[in-house]
């Protein structure tokens, strides 16, 4: 691995990136705090109307809730409390799972999400790039395999989920339809439980994988054609270098912008995952959000929002760091070399 010379500029570059992410997080949290307070409809009224209370009980419950959620304090006080609670990791109490705090509910859903998202994103990124590079090899391949890529990337995530669910769960009965694991099992490390986990996980993973795969294939096809037209490819050709070497260099250079592409596409992929989880009732954050919406559980909804935002921003920052490590041009460019 090349020795990583940390010059002054590199720190400044990361400092600036970090600043942007912190600013983004700050704005996202503020937006998240603003919504319930300024949107039409008051969460407390909705909760009470759902509980079907009458007469004096309405008043007392209203006061109790207002006091509980601290809605009676002055606005800026509420904002500070919100931040202090957030920093302590207390995301408030879920409404429809009343006593359990939002944080715990989320903790239950996060492992499923990571298990689904990480492999789906990384594998589709890796496979898509190699497929795109392969498709750019010849005109015939380009004209046949590429439209497939366009169809895939145009498919709405959830629709592919429904199709797969219908085909594999209903028509051919190969995979279970809903849930994280079959209901009659208690979570333990036995083989049956693990197998049930995997079989529930498989279809959402495949649908996320396929749609993402199309997008990366197209991106790579365009980038690699651009690199194969670059001067250094022509020079290697003129020196009789074998096609394999030229393609290897072109691929390595074409992959770099795909890394930044990964950071940009993260938000879109996460959104797709939410929809897919709804189709398979897969107990990730997406499914939680759906339940929160149906039960008007605003605090759970806000908690999910914060988790997703933090996850995406963190991933973006990691990808930015990886990019500087991998691409010598930016690293050396920053140190004013050359």
């Amino acid at each position, binding site marked *: 691995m090349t020795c990583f010379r940390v010059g002054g500029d590199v720190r400044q570059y990361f400092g600036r990136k970090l600043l942007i992410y912190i600013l983004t997080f700050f704005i996202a949290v503020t937006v998240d705090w603003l919504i319930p307070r300024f949107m039409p409809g008051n969460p407390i009224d909705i909760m009470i109307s759902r509980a079907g209370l009458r007469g004096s009980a309405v008043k007392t419950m209203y006061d109790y809730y207002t006091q509980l959620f601290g809605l009676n304090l002055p606005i800026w006080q509420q904002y500070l409390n919100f931040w202090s609670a957030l920093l302590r990791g207390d995301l408030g109490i879920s409404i429809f799972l009343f006593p359990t705090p939002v944080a715990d509910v989320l903790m239950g859903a996060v492992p499923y999400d990571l298990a689904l998202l990480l492999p789906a994103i990384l594998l589709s990124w890796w496979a898509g790039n190699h497929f795109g590079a392969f498709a750019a090899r010849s005109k015939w391949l380009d004209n046949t395999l590429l439209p497939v890529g366009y169809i895939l990337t*145009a498919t709405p995530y959830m*629709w592919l989920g429904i199709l797969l669910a219908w085909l594999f769960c209903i028509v051919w009965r190969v995979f279970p339809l809903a849930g994280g694991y079959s209901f009659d099992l208690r979570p333990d490390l036995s083989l049956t439980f693990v197998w049930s986990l995997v079989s529930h996980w498989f279809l959402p993973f495949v649908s996320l994988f396929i749609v993402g795969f199309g997008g990366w294939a197209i991106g790579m096809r365009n980038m690699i054609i651009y690199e194969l037209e670059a001067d250094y490819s022509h020079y290697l050709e003129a020196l009789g270098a074998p096609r394999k070497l030229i393609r290897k260099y072109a691929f390595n250079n074409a992959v770099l912008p795909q890394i930044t592409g990964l950071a940009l596409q993260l938000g879109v992929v996460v*959104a797709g995952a939410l929809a897919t989880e*709804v189709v398979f009732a897969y107990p990730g954050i997406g499914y939680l959000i759906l339940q929160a919406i149906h039960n008007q559980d605003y605090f759970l909804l806000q908690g999910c929002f914060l988790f997703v*935002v933090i996850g995406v921003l963190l991933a973006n920052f990691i990808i930015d760091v990886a990019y500087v490590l991998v691409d010598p041009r930016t690293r050396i460019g920053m140190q004013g070399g050359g």
Partner: protein
Amino acid sequence: MPSPKKKNEILFFALRNNKLRIGLSIVLFFVVLTFVGPLLTQYKPDEFVGPPSSPPSSKFWFGTTTFGEDVFTQLVYGLGSTFMVGLIGGGLGTLLGVLIGFTAGYRGGLVDELLNMLTNIVLSVPALVVLLIIAAYLQVRSLFTESIFIAFFAWPWAARAIRAQTFSLRIRDFVDLARLSGMSSLKIIFTEIAPNMMSYLLLVFILQFGGAILTAATLDFIGLGPTNAISLGLMMNMAVLWGALILGTWWWFIPPGVAITAIVGALYVTNVGLDEVFNPKLREM
């Protein structure tokens, strides 16, 4: 290799580019279906007209839903709202992108740095999640408000592309020559830079249009679509909610999905075709 007049040269390649031809024909087919469809069917999308969950037949071309609504009618009306979201959302997104992209690209310096930061911030916030929250709170949601929210989160993609293109045009000498001829910056942007980017703006609009449709479909699917209109996403949502999978009524959720995939796919293919027509380097491929 000098070429004859620019105009008919582009036309020459446009007519021969089969990606463009296929893409455009599919999109046109659905546009026609949107206008002709409602005339072909005498039902309303939410009217109970036939036996529930009946398979496609001569009477109900795409069969009926669990409530006995005609799927074909729902599809046709849904297409209308999907295109509407695409137009308003995509159009507004492109407009915002153009404004911010142009000013950032042309002015440069601090303005560029600030606008760029704003673009990156909105880009790194996962748009759909924020949309979820907003939509969840809005009890009554119209197609129009949904399009505006979608546009609000789609413009950064357009802004990035247009900023890069404006920047590459700004350093060209003909901008300096225009300034030497006493033209004001605004006039330079609209009479010198913008016309050069018409082809590019079209490409950006097509992508925004497709993107808006996909985002709207996802939103509707989660149940946060317009409350007063039918859309393809809503159809799929209802299908899943009311057990179309278990009942095996495949004709309820397959047509909307095919429609969205076909429209958005055709738009992307048209985009690639246009890109090949406008920039000769790709033409040889």
